């Protein structure tokens, strides 16, 4: 991350909370990170870790009547959170585009897919002729690998399979050539053979368009396949930010150790207990004091009281650019992280 160019996206001290009947849900709590041009960054975490809310904030998609957002999100020097609706509309689609988990609910069942791809293009090219729009849509369908596009341009979403629908959603997202593509669990609803097709497609389109990809996923296998940098989230915080090789070979946070250890890896030999993280993620309404992970952390007793009282800050650990939010000393984090037995 020793990049001298300006980041294409800079998230600074982002906090998002939602008022509910039961109390305030602190979905994202003081998150900062930069994303540079052309990189693929994965945001990984379990349900409720705040990854989707964070992604929604970048496009300002969170419901403003219930969500309270603080901090800054700079895209092209514009703060998305304070910009006018008009400015945000200029960013959505042309600067930052998003694809979602469920391709069926992302598409409108009443319109042909040709019309839906065209709609995204026309918003940013109001003067485009019908002929031009038609050509752009066809070219896009070819790029995302939809067979016989001339015929299928007039078909409706239900006439496509899950994988094909996700290709259409990608076509809509990329039709304006955005600089940043946010993909929120884009392959979770797909079978593993189709997932492989879609990931391959995204990576080859990234090369062609030179865009930055922010991929949100809970699947560490997907992370290992595509990421350069990885952000691990837990209970609304970033607990670790590392290069993908560092994360898989020498992770520097107890939660990362647990997460990597609990995966039933396909390469691993059968049997033998999986390492487990005891308990379950905390409620975002009443987070534990101190480090949010401490009630589930086997190492929290070793470092005095700090884990229970002081929220650890994200800091550099070691020399390979890893950052970790943990009270354990650097030496301990590095030596346990490199060891085979992280439990």
């Amino acid at each position: 991350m020793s990049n001298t160019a300006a980041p294409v996206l800079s998230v600074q001290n982002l906090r998002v909370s939602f008022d509910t009947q039961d109390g305030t849900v602190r979905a994202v709590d003081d998150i900062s990170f930069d994303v540079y041009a052309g990189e693929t960054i994965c945001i990984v975490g379990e349900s409720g870790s705040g990854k989707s809310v964070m992604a929604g904030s970048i496009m300002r998609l969170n419901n403003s009547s219930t969500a309270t957002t603080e901090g800054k999100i700079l895209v092209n020097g514009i703060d998305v959170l304070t910009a006018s609706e008009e400015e945000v509309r200029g960013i959505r689609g042309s600067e930052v585009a998003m694809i979602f988990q469920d391709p069926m609910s992302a598409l409108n069942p009443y319109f042909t897919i040709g019309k839906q791809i065209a709609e995204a293009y026309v918003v940013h090219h109001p003067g485009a002729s019908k002929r031009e729009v038609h050509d752009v849509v066809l070219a896009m369908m070819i790029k995302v690998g939809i067979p016989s596009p001339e015929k299928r341009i007039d078909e409706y979403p239900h006439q496509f399979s899950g994988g094909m629908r996700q290709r259409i959603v990608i076509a809509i997202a990329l039709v304006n050539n955005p600089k940043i593509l946010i993909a929120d669990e884009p392959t979770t609803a797909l079978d593993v053979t189709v997932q492989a097709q879609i990931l391959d497609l995204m990576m080859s389109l990234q090369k062609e368009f030179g865009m930055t990809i922010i991929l949100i996923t809970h699947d560490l296998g997907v992370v290992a396949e595509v990421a350069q940098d990885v952000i691990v989230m837990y209970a609304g915080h970033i607990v670790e930010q590392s290069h993908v090789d560092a994360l898989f070979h020498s992770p520097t946070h107890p939660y990362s150790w647990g997460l990597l250890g609990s995966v039933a890896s396909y390469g691993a030999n059968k049997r033998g207990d999986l390492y487990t993280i005891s308990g379950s993620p905390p409620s975002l309404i009443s987070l534990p004091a101190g480090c949010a992970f401490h009630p589930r952390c086997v190492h929290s007793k070793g470092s005095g009281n700090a884990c229970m009282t002081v929220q650890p800050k994200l800091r550099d650990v070691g020399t390979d650019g890893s950052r970790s939010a943990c009270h354990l000393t650097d030496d301990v984090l590095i030596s346990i992280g490199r060891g085979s037995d992280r439990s």
Partner: protein
Amino acid sequence: MSSDVALQAVDLVKHFPTGSKGLLGRPDKSVRAVDGVSFTLRKGKTLGIVGESGCGKSTLARVVTRLIEPTSGNILLDGVDITKTSGKDLRNMRRQMQMIFQDPVSSLNPRHSVGQIIAMPLRVQGLLDEEHSNERVKELMKLVGLNPEHFNRYPHEFSGGQRQRIGIARSLALNPTVIVADEPVSALDVSVQAQILNLLERLQSDLGLSMIFIAHDLSVVRHIADDVAVMYLGKIVEIGPAEEVYASPAHPYTKALLSAVPIHDPSERGGPGRIRLQGDVPSPIDPPSGCRFRTRCWKATDLCGAVEPPLQAEASGRVVACHFPEETPVSIGKSPE
């Protein structure tokens, strides 16, 4: 039948009628969800069944447990054919075979307390001893790692992983010999998945259970299964010991499926031999002639379209339904131990 077989399925078929009404108002087509499936479940072992959505694995689970009736075929539970049983015999059969479901929310009645839910199988079977039922429930809750004090609570007061534990406790209430688990961990986060997988393995060895474990996640099946059956469009294309199938898949579909699983090691990214299947699974209403995988198979010839390959043992000892099975050299990749 040898005594180490817990359950045997013989040529099971389940067709669901569908489509526009033909002559005499009968549906003229059918979804061939399960189309001639045979397997044996060894006593005390786990048979994993893997396949993509729509391959018929959940229908198979429901047919095997007779939650839905098979169109044809037989199911032998401990040597007894249970496909024709009814009434009291059927109820007795259900004591021996219980099911764990995918969704721990919809499979638990939100209006019943955990105690009532876990005791329900006993009640249905007329085995409920009011005096001792609470003890039995608490014993079961302890067995699956739940706090027995919580038997008066309701499902919504538990987390997803704990709810799945409730479902497991319920399935164990009748001391069954066979458990059919249909995607028992796919709704859970990985850290919780690991807890449930460990629990299932422990229960299996403690209680000597035989288990059919259905999942789309190949890594999970690899971890838990002794034998594995790979399904494609309503048929088993390959079956055998998990180590062998994973180390050197004999059917091209198995090979492609394993190859599509993301490897949890960034340094092996883009490694050699990754196979990318083109296209999607065809419709089970009108499956391809001959071998059903031939439309996506890179080895397919005219023979594959004309003749359906039977599931049979090859010279190598591998059981596979393919005209051109993959070579199975002595050691490939990680050698089986």
